[in-house]
């Protein structure tokens, strides 16, 4: 069996007259880490929402683990899809007070039956996820009292309890300090080495080059470029991508890109 986790053929995605990508041919296989790079407003989040099945594509074929998207209609099993594909949103909402443990346990929803309550096993999964995000001792805290970075780590922990095969991450490093940025990227790299696939919208090409083996560049006019990070992430492409001259620096064997 060699079904890609995510497959796009001649995919066209647009929003409000703006073309995000045109004729995108793209395969994401198990074990791969992808970065999506592009300017503000280029449609990275729109593309990610389309890949997650939240909105329909304009044209073309899109499938997650062989299930064609959009995954709607009476026969669609949304919970089965949620066991395969996880999505980290850019924004978290906490209009009501709630504990951290309760919030992280929410990720178990697709694994539980309609009448089930969360079991001790679910609770252990949730606690392990909190531990992995350096949030031991937070379980009883009210989510409304968390700082921005803590809330973001909680959202990542929630995604881990979902245990998907495909992680779609919209700016996973938002609000995180440097050490937690590195920790989260390493954590997702570990997940990929264990057989998951990750697709992350990132704003730092250095992080993309360091932690993601592959990259998809969105140029804003429907043009795109996909391939191994070592090939597509370079100063010339990034200068065109961001519309600002960039320089490549090398330190400790990693490539970093700084604006001129």
């Amino acid at each position, binding site marked *: 069996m060699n079904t890609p986790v995510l497959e796009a053929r001649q995919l066209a995605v647009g929003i409000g007259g703006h073309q995000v990508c045109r004729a995108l041919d793209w395969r994401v296989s198990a074990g791969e880490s992808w970065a999506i790079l592009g300017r503000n407003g280029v449609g990275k989040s729109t593309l990610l929402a389309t890949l997650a099945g939240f909105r329909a594509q304009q044209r073309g074929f899109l499938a997650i683990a062989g299930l064609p998207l959009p995954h709607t209609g009476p026969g669609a099993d949304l919970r089965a899809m949620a066991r395969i594909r996880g999505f980290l949103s850019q924004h978290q909402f906490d*209009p*009501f007070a709630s504990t951290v443990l309760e919030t992280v346990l*929410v990720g178990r*929803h697709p694994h539980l039956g309609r009448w089930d309550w969360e079991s001790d096993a679910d*609770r252990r999964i949730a606690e392990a996820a909190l531990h992995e995000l350096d949030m031991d001792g937070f379980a009883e805290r009210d989510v409304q009292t968390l700082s921005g970075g803590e809330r973001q780590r909680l959202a990542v922990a929630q995604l881990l309890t979902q245990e998907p095969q495909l992680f779609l991450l919209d700016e996973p490093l938002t609000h995180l300090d440097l050490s937690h940025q590195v920790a989260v990227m390493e954590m997702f790299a570990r997940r990929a080495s264990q057989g998951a696939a990750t697709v992350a919208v990132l704003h730092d090409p250095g992080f993309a080059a360091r932690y993601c083996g592959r990259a998809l560049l969105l140029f804003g006019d429907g043009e795109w470029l996909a391939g191994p990070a070592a090939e597509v992430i370079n100063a010339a492409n990034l200068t065109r991508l961001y519309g600002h001259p960039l320089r490549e620096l090398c330190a400790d064997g990693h490539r970093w890109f700084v604006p001129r």
Partner: protein
Amino acid sequence: MPNRRRALLVLAALVGVALLSLFVALAAGSMTVAFADVLRAIGGYGDGLAIEVIRGLRLPRALAAFACGGLLALAGALMQVLLRNPLADPYVLGISGGAAVGALTAMLAGLTLAIINLFAFAGALVAMLVVFGLAHGDSSWTRSRLLLTGIIVASGCGAVVALIMSIAPEEGLRGMLFWLMGDLGHSVSPWPALAILALGLLAMQPFGRELNLLSRGDTLALALGVSVTRVKFGIYALASLLTAVAVTTAGSIGFIGLVVPHLVRLTMIRLGWGNDQRLLLPASALFGGSLLVLADTLARTVIAPQQLPVGVLTALLGVPVFLFLLGRQPNERK
């Protein structure tokens, strides 16, 4: 953290509270009956007058109060999830306004009690369909659009109500005022309301986790496999129906639907049980019902033989409680 066993224990305790409140309502009044005699009278034994007063007058009224309180609290809790706003109440989308227009029109025409109730129910349904039709126009379900449409429809209904009252004959005004305040004196039979309350609670139980997810945002709910549009429509329809039945039974009783879910949620958080709709919805219904039974008992005894509209009492009690809750929220963040 809530689990099934703890939830059942809490609900069992609240059922006890509800039974207690019903006992108080049956015993209290212009003719005081001892607790032991209350039990015997329910069974149909003992003093004939006591049987008549308790089984014929107080029991239906207390049950109607319980049903209305439960319906309003449940509808309020559902609206708060739907609008993702802890300050939403069952009337925010104009349903009570529609019911008021229907009821007062029937009163103006001098129709009988049963027809007035029918008109109230029809008015509530019309308001619900109008708000839904207007807000759903572009097939999106944005909260601000739903909320704004509801508020506009409610204020439109308010204008019509004012118009009816200004042209109504003097002697009809008191009845209209009592209806608007909320009053259990004109409820016909408690059983339809009780049945709808039970059905509503049962219908929502299997969707508890879905509601928890919806209260945390549509994207998260979608990502975790909730059929967001369908569940939201279900909540809207159910909450509207519950509210319509409540206002048909007792007019627009204020504050139960707003304060009770809020109070229950706050208590659950304080006790470390989290904010879980699987416990919150039935707990709100039981607590709201008990509260309205007690408030109504107070309303018909405090200046007896004169009766107060129970809506006045719930508002008088509700306003300070709500301001207190609102005032201490920022302190919790620190």
